[in-house]
């Protein structure tokens, strides 16, 4: 359920989007400032390189400005930006990292939130996530950190949902191995 505060924010954001669509650069700046943290965070996690993440974030907002007329105001502006950011980040890679066999639906139950065995320092998790192979990291970032469903993540990444699940399964196994090298505590 959307809270009153969220609803106000969405209305306010929709007004800014409408003004930006009419060419109001200041309204677009407001949208930029509202979303740059999430977009840069996503780009940083996908690229693992602060300089590349800056380029990726800028490219995201340039593409967004150019594509505003195509934006469906019924959907969330933030999610739309995330889709653009994922596209930009993936396009920067030389070749796709999707060599994992799709996992049949029944083999990987949907886990909305994966809990670690013991508390781990944020910096340690970030480093472990950053060390994952590209494909596994993409899914873990989108599903595990940003909370997208397999369906949404697979659509953003342009892969089958089964592949997405397989990559998440792989990512979690690799992450667990990295965080707990001597087995679960």
């Amino acid at each position, binding site marked *: 359920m959307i809270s009153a505060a969220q609803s106000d924010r969405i209305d306010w954001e929709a007004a800014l989007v409408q003004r930006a669509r*009419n060419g109001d650069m200041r309204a677009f700046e407001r949208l930029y400032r509202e979303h*740059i*943290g999430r977009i840069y965070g996503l780009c940083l996690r996908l690229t693992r390189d602060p300089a590349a993440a*800056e380029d990726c974030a*800028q490219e995201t907002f340039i593409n967004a400005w150019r594509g505003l007329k195509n934006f469906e105001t019924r959907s969330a502006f933030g999610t739309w930006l995330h889709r653009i950011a994922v596209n930009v980040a993936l396009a920067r890679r030389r070749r796709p990292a999707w060599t994992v066999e799709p996992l049949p639906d029944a083999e990987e139950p949907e886990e909305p939130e994966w*809990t670690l065995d013991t508390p781990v320092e*944020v910096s340690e998790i970030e480093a472990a996530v*950053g060390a994952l192979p590209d494909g596994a990291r993409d899914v873990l970032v989108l599903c595990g950190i940003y909370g997208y469903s397999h369906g949404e993540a697979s659509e953003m990444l342009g892969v089958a949902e089964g592949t997405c699940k397989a990559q998440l399964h792989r990512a979690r196994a690799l992450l667990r191995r990295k965080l707990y090298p001597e087995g679960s505590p």
Partner: protein
Amino acid sequence: MSEPHSPQPAARKVTSLRDLPLEIAPPRDLWPELERRLVAGGAGRRRWPQLPALRPRYFAAAAGLVAAVGVGILIGRGLLPSVGGDIATHPTASLVVPASFISDPRYLRDRAELLKSLNARLAELPPQSRQKVLASLATIHQSMRDIQAALGREPGNALLQELLVDTYQDEMRVLTTVQEASAGSGET
């Protein structure tokens, strides 16, 4: 590729990936460069919509518009936090444009030119229309002062910032309408 960037070096411990920060501030403000690229790429568009040239018979409609803007502003002011005391203690607060989001050089130039020629334009309007324009502008300028005073107390209030930008846009709409109406009267 550089070393994986660790965005939050703090020793905070978490048990879920969902507890990781979703927002990470970039090391520098990317907007100035981004804005340059948008403008250089031809993506920048006029901020203020062009109104069709107005003829004298549209004076009434123009006056109606500025009156409507004035009423809208009055309603908007009703949403503001109480700022009466601040206004009373700063009766001569100037109508400068302090907010960074209203600092577009093109906007400032257009506004200055319109304000400079306002008196001459007003002189060309019928007295009744002139009074309505002046009343609307007075309301708008008072609203600007109210909002700026409220922003002085709550500089991070997004709603107030939005309201201030809207008010400046309302002012520009009135100034543009007066200019168009005046130009229209000169055509006939």
